[in-house]
């Protein structure tokens, strides 16, 4: 048993931290979010040049051959810096699905271009009625000649506004909630019949609702076998959830650090407010929340590394735990910053909004608690 990071992992951690410090300060980040696309192509090219986009991919696909620990390290640093560029949608989700289910031609077509920074990807899986049930899918792909015709709508597609390629979850057989009969397709964002309505989310990311009207797809757009996508998608979402929870831990750590620094310098009644015992004890609570969240993340990562299937219940547990503790951390950070904590100018509220989005992404605590109970009590 060890909780150490390899030298390479330390280097990646340091390089992202340095990037955030030197090239991604708060004013820069604000300007990026306010820009037309809501992301920085320059920053993304830096990610490519420094090799961060290659890390989770297998060496035979041109990647670094990293594992879940590497992804955790990257996502934690992204969380610390509140980096808005679409690492999760492009590398983890789009790239991850291609790596998991794609054939050799598809892997050759997309993975090198993700790594060099030219493919920006998304995974379109949510629908207006689906809430957190991924199998609740009305978007349909019907066979047409050698290929397929896609019709339907996906909502809140992360990186949907900026992506040039997306993977769409569509029903090729069965009824609305059936787990069988779901398939994955690669669809070009500029294909005929694809219409995007893009909008920002409260955490600064750009998403889109995307409609597909008689979109013609080649036979080789199908990723994996037709009708069997659910297992792939669930496994992918598990991995992406771990990545997202690492980002949350990063956000929580930064909020605690900033709040602690603030209470040591902010004076009221002639003394630093950090000298008040009522605030001290609450900062101990948020410190413990962060350490405990990190511990549970480590547990999940270690289990997942051994055998992804064995981590299923723990991933639900982590989602429940982060939900509760992130709320504590951002709530206290906002409160202790006083009036400044509720301004748009200060970064505190933006970390809070990112954590709020993270909490609802891939299912909220209520959903995951129910899933946890199903899994834990079925055993």
């Amino acid at each position, binding site marked *: *048993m060890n*909780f150490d990071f390899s030298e390479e992992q330390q280097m990646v951690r340091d390089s992202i931290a340095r990037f955030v410090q030197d090239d991604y300060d708060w004013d820069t980040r604000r300007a990026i979010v306010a820009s037309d696309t809501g992301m920085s192509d320059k920053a993304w090219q830096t990610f490519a040049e420094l090799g961060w986009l290659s890390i989770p991919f297998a060496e035979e696909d041109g990647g670094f051959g990293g594992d879940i620990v590497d992804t955790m390290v990257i996502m934690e640093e992204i969380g610390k810096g509140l980096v808005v560029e679409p690492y999760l949608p492009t590398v983890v989700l789009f790239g991850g699905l291609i790596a998991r289910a794609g054939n050799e031609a598809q892997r050759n077509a997309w993975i090198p271009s993700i790594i060099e920074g030219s493919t920006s990807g998304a995974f379109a899986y949510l629908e207006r009625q689906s809430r957190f049930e991924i199998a609740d899918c009305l978007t349909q792909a019907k066979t047409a000649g050698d290929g397929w015709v896609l019709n339907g709508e996906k909502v809140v597609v992360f990186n949907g506004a900026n992506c040039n390629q997306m993977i769409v979850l569509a029903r090729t057989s069965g009824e609305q909630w059936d787990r069988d009969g779901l398939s994955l397709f690669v669809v070009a964002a500029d294909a005929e019949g694809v219409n995007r309505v893009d909008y920002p989310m409260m955490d600064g990311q750009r998403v889109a609702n995307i409609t597909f009207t008689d979109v013609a797809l080649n036979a080789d757009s199908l990723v994996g076998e037709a009708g069997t996508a659910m297992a792939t998608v669930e496994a992918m979402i598990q991995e992406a959830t771990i990545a997202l929870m690492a980002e949350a831990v990063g956000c929580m750590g930064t909020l605690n650090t900033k709040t602690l620094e603030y209470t040591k310098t902010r004076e009221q009644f002639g003394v630093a407010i950090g000298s008040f015992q009522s605030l001290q004890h609450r900062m*101990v609570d948020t*410190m413990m929340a962060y350490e*405990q969240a990190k511990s549970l993340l*480590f547990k999940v990562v270690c289990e997942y590394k051994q055998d992804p299937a064995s981590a299923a219940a723990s991933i639900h*547990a982590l989602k429940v735990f982060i939900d509760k503790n992130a709320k504590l951390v951002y709530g206290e950070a906002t409160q202790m910053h006083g009036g400044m904590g509720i301004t748009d100018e200060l970064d505190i509220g933006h970390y809070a909004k990112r954590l709020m989005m993270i909490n609802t992404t891939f299912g909220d605590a209520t959903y995951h*608690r129910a899933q946890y109970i199903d899994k834990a009590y079925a055993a």
Partner: protein
Amino acid sequence: MDIAFSPEELTFREEVRGFFDEQFDDELVSRLRGDNFKEAIVEWQQRLYKKGWIAANWPVEHGGTGWTPTQKYIYETERSERGIPGVIPFGIGMVGPMIYQFGTTEQKEKFLPGVLDSTTWWCQGYSEPGSGSDLASLKTKAELDGDHYVINGAKIWTSYAQYADWIFVLVRTSNEGKKQEGITFILVDMKTPGIKINPIISIDNEHSLNEVEFSDVRVPVENVVGEVNKGWTVAKALLAHERTGIADVAQSKRNIRLIKEAASAEMNGGKRLLDDAGFQAKVADLEIELMALEFTELRTLAAMAAGGFPGPESSLLKIKGTELQQATQELRMETAAYYQGVLPNGMDPEVLGHSWAHDAFRNYMYGRASTIYGGSNEVQKNIIAKYVLGLE
């Protein structure tokens, strides 16, 4: 970052399981519940001693196991799954490490063997009637008279003083300087004239706590551990040791299992309590909290393996561990419904109703102490605020 057990660790787990299955027998289990608790627990500890497993956290050169954090984790997991009690902490967990860390060669030779083989029962003389959380305000006085100290004062909340052969005591040897200065850590034979034990019955209706009075108790100067007037250093080191064990995640995990077992037998309107969605959510949230704490404990163990003694971070384990113990004890009481309040009054609890409900009562009631002892949780928060967060 890896928790996979190596083949050696899997072999170790088999050895632990085999030892427990063979040595923690039914006869011992029933004796541990009976009136001769002391004799039974000492016998169990001596079985561990013969196996070489009595001192999991001691260095090998003093008779410890030299276990890795993973081995400790395996051992604790297997122990708690069987409901095997932990080693009584006062000797192995507290005074032993202080003697090998701060003691003289003579003290090590004289006291450590009796700690290891459980022939000496130790108790702890820290708190006083007038000083609880503010430990350094202690007033029990030791005055030099030739080659002896003469001790006068009183200690309180002394667990199992009625069984003890020796007591380690914090005494005031000087009133100069800060109150933390002038404290001395000294070992006292309970048979010394002038010691009187007054029992205290706790809210679980049991007698484990006592007040210990000292009237002109003469103790040889060679019984001082560490330097005279520097006992605060020893006291703090001991408390840090005490705190890591206090979390007792394994015990809380066992309690969750007992709750689930009981709740799958409890029926409410023809439905199992365990199938009630509200109850399930309570159990799930506790389990999840414990998962996190278990890994915080592992992280602390790993850090200790790399760097030696536990630091102020052990306060986190104490706070979270005791909070979860109490939450778990509370849910077990809820599971027992009316039976949580049944006092057997000398009868067999099994005859009256749920046999486990009185255990739940005792654990819940005595469990209120856990957020108070070892430095109250509020004091722990002060420690973290000052030494970890740097808040003054």
